[in-house]
């Protein structure tokens, strides 16, 4: 746009300025050739201006007259200086006039960069801005750090709670084995009320929402038994159950990931006592559905895990420890999951209910229990 490529030309495109030609006069000033000759404040000129202003004690102290005298540049009029000084003063405020002369804008940017050459005020402003920026940066960093740490702490908290429950469960299971012989009835159910079993199931299925699920969490409470929110993108097959259980693999006979039928089938597999147990389990089923909103969306990790669930075997009477295989699968998949995505439940933990159901299996499960 500008024919002259001399050193004194602009160092940035003047998109706002009308096209004009610069002519360098003898005094070293660059004047444009449009009808109203305008002085182009080059970097060099501006630096001299700034020096002069600094010498005079700052933009507020300096006057156009004195600046002119100090600068000693021929052809510089009071008018030029007046307007430039005004802009300079304005430019010192954090808010910059957007219609600033291009070179002026650039040079004020330079000004900020060259803290040493600017006046006291400029330096302070510069420092303050830097400090503010740094403070903001620091805060953000801290937030991120806190987020990371809190996730791990919540996870630790959850793991430990789980261990408490399991320990108590085992104790109870051992007790019931002593008491009631070979019964496979869930001991807690024998104790009091039908709700005990569902409570356990519910506890293991309800999990603390992870930090990432904040926004999705809100949509959760529209869910009920029958109505699955499509914001949870999951394959129709895996259904609500896998969503519920997406978070913690530590349950449960109520992990009816294979559909309700498997549940009942499992119930049947337990033998004669199962008919009695059917009813509470279906209640458990209900409770699990109610637990839906707490769970995180399938998007994050349920899908990879869904396979694991799919293959989770139905417990059989002979106590075959296919569950142990599951453990390995849990290990494998969870280690690939990023820890930071969400507090991934400890994969090595045996489903809570399994111990409850079968004391025999509980013993063997105990071997698999570890925190890794």
């Amino acid at each position, binding site marked *: 746009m500008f024919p002259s490529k001399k050193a004194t030309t602009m160092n940035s495109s003047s998109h706002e300025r009308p096209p004009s030609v610069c002519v360098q006069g003898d005094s070293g000033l660059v004047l444009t050739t449009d009808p109203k000759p305008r002085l182009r404040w080059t970097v060099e000129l501006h630096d001299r201006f700034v020096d002069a202003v600094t010498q005079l004690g700052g933009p507020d102290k300096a006057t156009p007259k004195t600046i002119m005298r100090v600068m000693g540049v021929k052809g510089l009029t009071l008018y030029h200086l007046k307007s430039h000084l005004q802009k300079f003063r304005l430019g010192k405020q954090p808010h910059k006039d957007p219609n600033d002369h291009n070179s002026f804008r650039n040079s004020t940017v330079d000004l900020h960069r060259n803290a040493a050459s600017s006046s006291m005020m400029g330096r302070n402003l510069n420092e303050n801005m830097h400090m503010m920026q740094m403070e903001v940066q620091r805060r953000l960093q*801290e*937030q991120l*750090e*806190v*987020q990371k*740490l*809190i996730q*791990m*702490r*919540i*996870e*630790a*908290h959850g*793991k*430990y*709670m789980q*261990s*408490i*429950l399991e*320990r*108590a*469960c085992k104790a*109870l299971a051992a007790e019931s084995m002593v008491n009631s012989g070979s019964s496979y009835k869930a001991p*807690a159910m024998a*104790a*009091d009320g039908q*709700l*005990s079993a*569902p*409570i*356990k199931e*519910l*506890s293991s299925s*309800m*999990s*603390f*929402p*992870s*930090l990432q699920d*904040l926004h999705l*969490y*809100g949509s959760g*409470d529209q*869910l*009920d038994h029958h109505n699955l929110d499509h914001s949870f993108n999951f394959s129709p097959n895996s259904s609500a159950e896998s969503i519920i259980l997406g978070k913690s693999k530590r349950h449960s006979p109520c992990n009816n990931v294979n559909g309700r039928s498997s549940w009942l089938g499992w119930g049947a597999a337990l033998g004669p006592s199962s008919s009695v147990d059917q009813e509470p389990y279906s209640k458990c089923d*209900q*409770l699990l559905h*109610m*637990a*839906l*909103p*707490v769970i995180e969306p399938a998007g994050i990790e349920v899908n990879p895990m869904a396979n694991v669930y799919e293959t989770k075997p139905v417990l059989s009477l002979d106590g075959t420890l296919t569950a142990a295989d599951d453990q390995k699968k849990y290990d494998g998949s969870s280690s690939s999951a990023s820890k930071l995505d969400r507090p991934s439940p400890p994969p090595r933990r045996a489903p809570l209910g399994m111990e409850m159901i079968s004391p025999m299996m509980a013993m063997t499960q105990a071997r698999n229990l*570890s*925190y*890794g």
Partner: protein
Amino acid sequence: MEVAMDEANDFSRCNFSTAAAMDDYFACAWNNWEQSVADVGPFSASADADDFHDLVESIVFADDVDYDPSTGHFSLPQSPSYNSNTSTCTPVAEEEEHNATATAGDDAKGLRLVHLLEAAAEALGGVHKCPDLARVILVRLRELLGRGGEGTSIERLAGHFTDALQGLLDGGRTSLRDGGQHNHNNKMEVLTAFQLLQDMSPYTKFGHFTANQAILEATAGDRRIHVVDFEIAEGVQWASLMQALASRPGTSSPHLRITAMIRSGGSRSAQETGRLLAAYAASLGQPFSFSQCRLEANSERFRAAGVKVVKGEALVMNCVLHPTTTAARRRTTGSVASFLSGSVDLGARVVTLVEEEVGEGEEAEQEQGRGFVGRFMAELGRYSAVWDSLEAEFPMQGQARAVVERVILGPRIAGAIGHAYRAEEEEGGQVESWGEWMTAMGFGKVSISCFNHSQAKLLLGLFKGGYKVEETATNKLVLGWKTRRLLSASVWKPPSPVLLPVIDSFEDSDFLFD
């Protein structure tokens, strides 16, 4: 006998946008009830036997309180007409969301329950104690509430308070409403319900995490950390502390030693807890050791001499007074005081305190000024906030909430009410706010770091909203639900031993002559 309530009511401030905003409602209701209670015959200073009799009759013999939905009035068949204050509310409600009108009936019922509860509390522990009247009112309440465990949120809440009051009347026998289940909840159920509560609310985690972070910061460079825990319970707090210690970048993790203060009979469960903690520490690779220290048998006082101190270790004392799991016997004032003052003897670096926050504002002052009734209403307010918070966060999990309410919160309510009732009997009175006590004793404040505050905020951010954390003092974070402050976590520095004299007043007189 006139029950003059109409003039006292001004519900213009009430917000009916959701039925679940009972808290706001109560805030209005209680303020207005203040004036109306003063007018109620039997409770005023100039109680007249006839008035009393009339009231009893009217409550007992009312077939049902007639409720007229159109006007929002309900009245007892016999005069006086028991005007509810919903008459002005219904039109207001209609201006709000349309379903508010449908719930105006519920609100009215809720209000009625609150009034009855307050009346019962007044009869039981107010200025003029009248157990018979209380009994009658409780009967009426039970009628209104039906079977335990059902009904709306407010009904369940009122039910627990009814049970608590009944328990006071019966002098310790278990309540009758749910067949005396309280003490027979098996451990699994309690633990499971506790986990549910933790998942559904930030109460437990808030206290634990804040305290742990303060401990971490106070012991940043130390190689050995010794925590003396007042109430080890299941040791849940220490899991996340261990995790934080084990995952500190750089140097290997410091050795953590936990000494649990136990009361008589608590040894076995503390051992169990110790084992669990040790197992968990092992899984993290965190060096750990656990020991117990007995509190004195009867007085449950803390003796600093009983704690083994190792040279070079950083000692911190942790005092979580917020009931965590079961409604264990409340700690006596003397016990807590001796523990806190023991921090001076032990040269503790910091003392972390988690306690229930007394209410705020004029409401709280009014409540406190009225002895047992005041504290009863304060607890009612507190737990209604807790109820609300659970319901608002998990509206669909009604059954889970009911379980938590029955197993955890119900016993806590009973404990709180019992505690409030025995306030006068306890030696040395009761301390409402241990934070204030510590300030008075010369404990210094350790400021809550930015990190800690952010952590709390993030923790609350995991929930939908309504919870908030405030920094009410440099060393204190308070967790609240909407306008109600519920729980506070604060960090203190023990004063130097020179400032001890005042603390001695809590010790047995024998001890002084050692």
